[in-house]
């Protein structure tokens, strides 16, 4: 009368669609939370999910119900000392002495509705803001780099990997093999037939002709191409050879750089970091900040401490050069650098910067990006860097950034270059 069914093997993600619907509805809240997380987390710590909190009043579904108040009588269990007519002090407002179902429905206590999103979802929301095309998002979210390599032939595969030559060769061999006996017999019969025609024995001729027809028929039934002939090119995934990279983050911290500008710069560094992380096994980050003099600092200080004073960009470039010489051999390390500034520089310093880049840094680095975060017109540094860009188009990119969505174009060049290399 009862059927017992094992459903454990059925999919367990029946609620996935509904979950996605929920995330979609509260997209803006989640994006804000992700933005907060980006500002809070370290650059090297982007690769995990995040707890999202949404105020309960936003996720609340309204229903018609009784509000607090009115006159009501309710029954409770566990009387110990009360008698009819006893009066009890009401608890102070907010004490919530009555644990009845009614009261808890109204839950005035504003507890947030919290839930976790996965690493992939986190990155998705993060990239969303930066207006990255999907292809690039995939590249960034990729956990490890693989390359597919040919690895001989296998007997099972998808049609697109079918090797026609190999398959036909197999089929040919099989046809020869399967037909050898029959063909030999055919030859023999034909010889006998010839002999019989000479001896003029009609019954024998007829029998032989029938035999020949039978063998020929059987020869014809050997399939031209059979399943067992098919061969497919085998592809295996091999991890890409990876190596070491160092990323230099250079930033102007003079008084004119506000926290907003720094946060924008942080996004930019973050993208670069994520990109490098996908491509290199070991990454080190060097933070250099500068005003009139440059200093190597840790991440916290880099993003969140404030300085005042003028700006001499070349000081940072010099320090970078020193650090490269001391610690990062250019033959062993892939060197990337990202410089962020609001464009201010000491007037006489810009040509010096260009010269430093030109002679010392750009020959050593894989890629140097400069972003100028300013809504205003360009200044001397920009003009000086422009010429550098012309001389080193493969290694140097620069862009002016007004908002988060402008960050991507700088990257496009970087990725385009990457693909170009892979194609070779």
């Amino acid at each position: 009368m009862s059927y017992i069914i094992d459903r454990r093997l059925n999919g367990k993600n029946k609620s996935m669609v509904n979950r996605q619907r929920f995330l979609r509805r509260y997209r803006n809240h989640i994006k804000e939370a992700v933005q907060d997380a980006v500002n809070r987390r370290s650059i090297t710590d982007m690769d995990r999910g995040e707890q999202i909190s949404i105020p309960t009043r936003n996720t609340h579904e309204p229903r018609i119900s009784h509000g607090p108040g009115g006159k009501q009588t309710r029954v409770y269990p566990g009387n110990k000392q009360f008698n009819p007519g006893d009066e009890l002090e009401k608890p102070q407002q907010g004490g919530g002495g009555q644990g009845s179902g009614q009261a808890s429905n109204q839950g005035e206590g504003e507890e947030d509705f919290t839930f976790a999103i996965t690493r992939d979802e986190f990155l998705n929301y993060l990239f969303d803001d930066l207006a990255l095309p999907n292809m690039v998002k995939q590249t960034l979210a990729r956990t490890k780099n693989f390359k597919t390599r040919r690895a001989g032939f296998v007997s099972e595969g998808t049609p697109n990997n079918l090797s026609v030559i190999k398959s036909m060769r197999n089929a040919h061999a099989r046809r020869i093999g399967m037909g050898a006996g029959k063909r030999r017999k055919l030859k023999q019969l034909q010889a006998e037939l010839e002999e019989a025609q000479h001896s003029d024995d009609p019954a024998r001729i007829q029998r032989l002709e029938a035999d020949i027809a039978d063998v020929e028929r059987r020869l014809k039934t050997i399939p031209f191409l059979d399943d067992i002939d098919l061969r497919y090119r085998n592809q295996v995934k091999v991890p890409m050879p990876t190596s070491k990279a160092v990323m230099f983050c250079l930033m102007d911290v003079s008084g004119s750089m506000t926290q907003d500008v720094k946060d924008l710069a942080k996004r930019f560094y973050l993208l670069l970091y994520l990109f490098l992380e996908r491509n290199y096994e070991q990454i080190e980050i060097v933070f250099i900040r500068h005003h009139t003099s440059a200093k190597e600092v840790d991440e916290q200080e880099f993003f969140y401490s404030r300085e005042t004073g003028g700006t001499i960009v070349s000081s940072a470039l010099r320090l970078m050069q020193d650090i490269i010489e001391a610690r990062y051999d250019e033959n062993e390390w892939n060197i990337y650098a990202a410089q962020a500034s609001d464009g201010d520089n000491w007037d006489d310093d810009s040509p010096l910067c260009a010269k430093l880049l030109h002679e010392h840094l750009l020959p050593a680095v894989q890629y140097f990006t400069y972003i100028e975060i300013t809504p205003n017109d360009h200044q001397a540094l920009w003009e000086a860097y422009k010429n550098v860009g012309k001389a080193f188009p493969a290694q140097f990119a620069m862009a002016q950034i007004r908002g988060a969505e402008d960050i991507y174009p700088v990257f496009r060049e970087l990725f385009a270059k990457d693909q170009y290399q892979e194609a070779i």
Partner: protein
Amino acid sequence: MSQYISTDSDWTFELLQEYDSEIARVAAHYGLDTYPNQIEVISAEQMMDAYSSVGMPIGYHHWSYGKQFLATQKSYQRGQMGLAYEIVINSNPCIAYLMEENTLPMQALVIAHACYGHNSFFKNNYLFRTWTDASSIIDYLVFAKNYLRKCEERHGQDEVEALLDACHALQNYGVDRYRRPKPISAAEERMRQQEREEIRQQQLNDLWRTLPTRKQEAATKKQRQFPSEPQENLLYFIEKNAPLLQPWQREVVRIVRKISQYFYPQRQTQVMNEGWATFWHYTLLNHLYDEGKVNDGFMMEFLTSHTSVVYQPGFDSPYFNGINPYALGFNMFQDIRRICEHPTDEDREWFPDIAGKDWLETLHFAMRDFKDESFIQQYLSPHLMREFHLFSIYDDDTADHYKVDAIHNESGFRRLRETLSRQYDLSVREPNIQITHVDIEGDRSITLRHTQQDGMPLSGDTFEVLKHIHLLWGFDVHLESWDGDHMIKRMSCPSISVDL
């Protein structure tokens, strides 16, 4: 020689089958009439899925179920909450989900509880027989899911979502309380849906006919009251009369209304349903124990869970969260049995018609023909009120003190019973709201009337709900709160509420 069915605590499918057939045998002995059972073993993750779809095996997609899922997942992962041991669905065959994590005694408990307790309640209680059709619900849910999916394809996810949000807000006001529908099959349902759609398309809604009329006719029409009687099924009224809804939108309203109707009996029989199921898992497994089919270890584990299920903390306990329906229901059924088998003089005085009668027959009668409210009114005995130490508190929001109204003594029993019974009366628990007027000659606004009981105001959500009604109705919505014969508040959407 031992004839135990098992001595281990690990379950296998063979053992489940064996327990099921033993329990079925004992259940038949006690006259439990059930639908066939379909017992499905699922994992914890699947249980969370089942949880978040309000126990429906198939549901249409909506963000609120996603929210439910995330909340369940979070509290489960943090260990704040264990998952239910089972979920049972009022369908034919009756589907019960068993968690794979349960031990064998737990599985036996769940089979007895869900597959024989709840199942027989679903099949025999008058509310379920009146309002639900167990054999067609799964088909209907499939129909609803596919229909909504098609709507999303045709009209976009956002539009369907907004419509569902609005319907959900009125879910509890989408049930018929008195009329009894004839059950129809899924195929019929589909055909009728198409018919309805065609007819609606063709029909010029009589309400909004704007043909010029003769003078005296116009004069009489001015008086015309629409609807002629107040309507309490808001969703039904909207489905049939909302002027601007598209045919597909009416169908969606209908789907939400139907599903709400399906759950309507469950909302009214929580104490009885859980009490009945708990009573039977207790009785059936004890019967097996008496027959020597299960050993002491089994019983110890079973009783541990059973005891925690029927535990009722006092009002001053930190664990107190209202009256535990399992505890109340279980003890009431136990108490009825006691009254039948071993009546005291008090019982004879209070329950002359059942004291000393056949307990099984009495119990089946009580299960069949009552809902929580009437069940408590009829059967809550002084004995049980004393055991629970029940007392009632009168809370007047204008007074500084709570007043103890009645306690478990001779003069308080009837008042207590009355009060507790009212607590389970849906018409008291939910505000009384009816559609009283549609201004069909004028601005087409709809007026809802809230009849206030005991001075209880509407919750702060109400304006949000009005917005949803406005979305469905398409014209102004007014909500008037009446206390006796004077209006105390009038709220309108879109516009501002007025305190009178």
